[in-house]
């Protein structure tokens, strides 16, 4: 779980361009439906929220349920009007938050 999230987006974009952002974070996404060898239910432990903001403004977010696959992959778009920093946050059921940042520049 300590793995760094993987984020793919262009280093630079023209003003007004819509870019694609791909994110992948390592997480078991335990659904709370499975039983272990002793027949006990494995408690639910998932990332229940993902959010992305750019220079402090929300770009995209999602509420996730146990029906999301392990190592959640999320792909979305962002319109770039200025250079700045993307901030990503994945919130775990136990309250832990995995964060990451990516910078993007404007094409000269």
């Amino acid at each position, binding site marked *: 779980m300590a793995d760094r999230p993987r984020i793919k987006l262009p280093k630079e974009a023209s003003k007004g361009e819509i870019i694609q952002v791909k994110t992948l974070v390592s997480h078991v996404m335990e659904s709370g439906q499975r039983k272990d060898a002793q027949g006990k239910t494995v408690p639910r432990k998932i990332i229940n929220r993902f959010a992305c903001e750019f220079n402090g403004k929300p770009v995209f*977010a999602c509420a996730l349920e*146990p*029906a999301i696959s392990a190592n959640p992959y999320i792909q*979305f*778009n*962002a319109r770039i009007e200025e250079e700045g920093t993307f901030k990503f946050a994945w919130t775990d059921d136990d309250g832990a938050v995995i964060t990451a940042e990516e910078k993007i520049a404007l094409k000269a």
Partner: protein
Amino acid sequence: MVAINRRQAFALGGGFVALALMPMAADAEPSNDAAAWIKKFTDGKEPVKGKIALDLPEIAENGNTVPLSVTVDSPMTADAYVKEVMIVADGNPNAGVATLMFSPLSGKAEASIRIRLAQTQNVTAIAKMSDGSLFSEQKTVKVTIGGCGG
């Protein structure tokens, strides 16, 4: 009495097999609270079909990771954009899959995720626009190996 020859008998038999299989192929009986999820999201309003492109495989070999893409037709300006898209699966232990929240900064109301499907079922996407209007789209996915429990 109508005489049935061998060939006709086979054709009939085949027909019955097909009939018997049909309800399985389209076993679309909601087995969870999908309707309640939808009602909560839509506030009881009836969504209009359209504007959404829901991309899912027709047959998912592995229900543990089913790629899902959703695109909503919208200019995505500050005045008119897609606020939220809720995804529900009516054959999973829990109906909710994800709620995607867009903003004008998203540029395009398009997102991809990977989901778990426990069995063959219908997946529904409902979009809520900034003006409050609602749109929906539904796809049936056949699942060979279920993705929950296991």
